[in-house]
């Protein structure tokens, strides 16, 4: 017997055991706390509960023009969402003209949808009711400080228009400032039919940037600036797809799926030991490493776990064993052909490698297509499938080979029956 190999082998088993325990229940050692995998992995909307809305830009524009508007709209939506206090909102562009907004763990979903999707028409209107500029002409608006009439620094709201806006604003201010009465010089800033500010024009403003002054404190000034900015959705957005999922549905699904996964895993463990004996045990160790690896990669890449994702994960466990089965069947054949244990293992791995590689790459192709063309939870399924394939290649080929050779090196038994022959 080779004691060095035995020690290494036992160490590895202990390490895998400890890591598995950590992943399942988490560990607290004094000040160091390692959370369990379940706490660490982010949950997708279908599990955490929440809402997603897909908004479509109602515009005939294409190309960079459209891109720009979508980018702007996304920035505005982000602001609106931030005001809801949602942790980690996910706002992504989908296709050319759509925006997908995902908000996890939100209580008042109806209100959120209303607020996000609202075009919130911002208009600057003169006293005669003519629209001077609209929200799409406003490039920026923020709080700045300038010396007021009393000589103190006062907060004011700055406005910055785009080229087109600057031109119309110059014309209007020229026209209005020529009037005599103050009430004829007013520009009403209207957001969704509500007047949010009504500054009086003092002079012609032809450089495209203006300030609104008048008794603001910092808070009210920044509120107005935010309203003007957020009101400037450059294009009308229509709600084309919505999904609201209550928090209870997802949690039940998660718990039952974890339970199902655990039972499935145990059954596969037993199956492998019964059919393949010692290599079966090795495959089980490799499979444990595989599951840890996949969970680790998911945590590291911050992949959100979705319901189809869990299904993909459990499926990939089944498939991860596939490579082991291919290799072990080959080793069995080699043993039956009268080869010694060591040569049988070597040639078994070598000759099975091409089919393992080919079959995994083809599944990989399907995974890529799912990831690329799928949306939402289907994408999640694609991601777990891809991660699963990569991890299973590593564990089933390299780790199993290493462990199996290590075990044979211990010289505990040379009985080829225990190797499945």
């Amino acid at each position, binding site marked *: 017997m080779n004691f060095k190999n035995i020690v290494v082998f036992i160490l590895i088993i202990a390490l895998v055991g400890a890591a598995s325990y950590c992943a399942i229940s988490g560990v607290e050692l004094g000040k160091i706390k390692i959370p369990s995998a379940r706490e660490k992995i982010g949950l997708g909307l*279908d599990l955490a509960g929440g809402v997603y809305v*897909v908004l*479509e830009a109602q515009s005939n524009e294409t190309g960079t023009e459209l891109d720009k508007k979508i980018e702007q709209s996304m920035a505005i939506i982000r602001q609106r969402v931030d005001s809801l206090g949602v942790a980690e909102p996910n706002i992504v562009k989908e296709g050319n003209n759509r925006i997908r907004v995902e908000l996890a763990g939100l209580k*008042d979903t*109806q209100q959120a*949808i*209303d607020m996000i999707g609202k075009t919130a028409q911002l208009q600057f209107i003169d006293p005669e009711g003519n629209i001077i500029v609209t929200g799409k002409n406003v490039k920026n608006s923020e709080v700045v400080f300038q010396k007021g009439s009393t000589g103190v620094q006062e907060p004011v709201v700055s406005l910055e228009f785009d080229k087109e806006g600057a031109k119309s604003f110059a014309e209007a201010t020229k026209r209005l400032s020529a009037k005599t009465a103050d009430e004829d010089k007013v520009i009403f800033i209207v957001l969704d039919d509500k007047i949010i500010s009504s500054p009086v024009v003092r002079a012609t403003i032809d450089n495209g940037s203006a300030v609104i002054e008048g008794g603001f404190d910092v808070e009210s000034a920044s509120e107005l600036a935010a309203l003007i900015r957020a009101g400037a959705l450059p294009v009308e957005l*229509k*709600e*084309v*797809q*919505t*999904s*609201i*999922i*209550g928090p*209870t*549905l997802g949690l*039940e*699904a998660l718990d*039952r*799926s974890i*339970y*199902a*996964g655990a*039972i*499935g895993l145990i*059954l*596969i463990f037993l*199956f*492998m030991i019964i059919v393949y004996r010692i290599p079966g045990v090795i495959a089980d160790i490799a499979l444990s490493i595989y599951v840890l690896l996949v969970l680790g990669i998911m945590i590291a890449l911050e992949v959100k776990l979705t*319901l*189809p994702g869990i*299904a*993909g994960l*459990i*499926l990939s*466990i*089944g*498939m991860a*064993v596939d490579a082991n*089965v*291919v290799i072990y*069947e080959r080793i069995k*054949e080699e043993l039956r052909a009268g080869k010694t244990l060591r040569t049988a293992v070597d040639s078994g791995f070598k000759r099975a490698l091409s*089919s393992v590689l*080919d*079959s995994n790459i*083809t*599944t*990989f*192709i*399907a*995974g890529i*297509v*799912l990831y690329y*063309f*799928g949306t939402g939870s*289907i994408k999640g*399924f694609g991601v777990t499938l891809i991660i699963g394939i990569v991890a299973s290649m590593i564990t089933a080929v390299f780790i199993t080979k290493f462990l199996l050779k290590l075990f044979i090196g211990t010289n505990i038994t040379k009985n080829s029956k225990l190797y499945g022959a």
Partner: protein
Amino acid sequence: MNFIQKRNIFFALSALVIIFGISYGLITGLHYGLDFTGGTMLQIDFGKTVPVEDIRKITDKFDTKASIIHAGANKEEVIIKSIVDLDNQERNEIFTKFKEEYGLKDEALIQSQKIGPAIGNEIQRKALLSIVLATIGILIYTSFRFEVKFGIAAIIALIHDALVVFAVYAAFHIPLDSTFIAAILTIVGYSINDTIVIFDRIRENLKLMKKESYEDIANISIKQTLSRTINTTLTTLIAIVTLYILGVDAVKDFAFPLIVGMIAGTYSSVFIASPIWYLLKTKSKESIV
């Protein structure tokens, strides 16, 4: 067993399942999921069983054709599906009415979905495109690694699997939706494994047994890899059947077609792919001579 010689029996068996399933489905009507048709869905937990007629009293104002299904462990939940595209306000209105009528809390709304008709069409189109692309990708890869005849045989087997899954969906009236596409793609990706392991062996044996006929080589290769084919299918089936038995409804909907597809995939690897490769191989030889 001679897999190649009895090929017509296997082909006929598959054709029977596919033709019967699909035509039964077509005659009785195919069901499409919400994400393919577009429409609205609400799932509400009433905390007690509410008769369909009572639900209709409220939903009829929006859509008289809406489908009402009881769900959940105690059938206390109700799923309302309509192909009418109701906006946020209208959905809110429906839920508020139920809330008032049955004294429900906000949490009673388990889920609510709306999919615009254009999106539905697009999802359908993308879904078909993704299946076609995955198939082409796999065909190119297999043709490159083996030879075109292996590639074609593998693809025919894959189309067979997809058709069987479709036939099962059609016959059992499972709604066709994105999950269906994900299931088909998974099957396509998985079933090719079995096929490739057998083809890999045929390729190897072609070099080793120069004197044997294609029929013998195909048969020997299938037999040599048979226990592996069965064992890998078993391990994956163990995982997915447990998921089906213990999982929630949404998972079950996904697990069931996977189980069917996996069995179809294994069947096609052994009984369809290799015989087709044999046919392609011998046909081309005749034409050369």
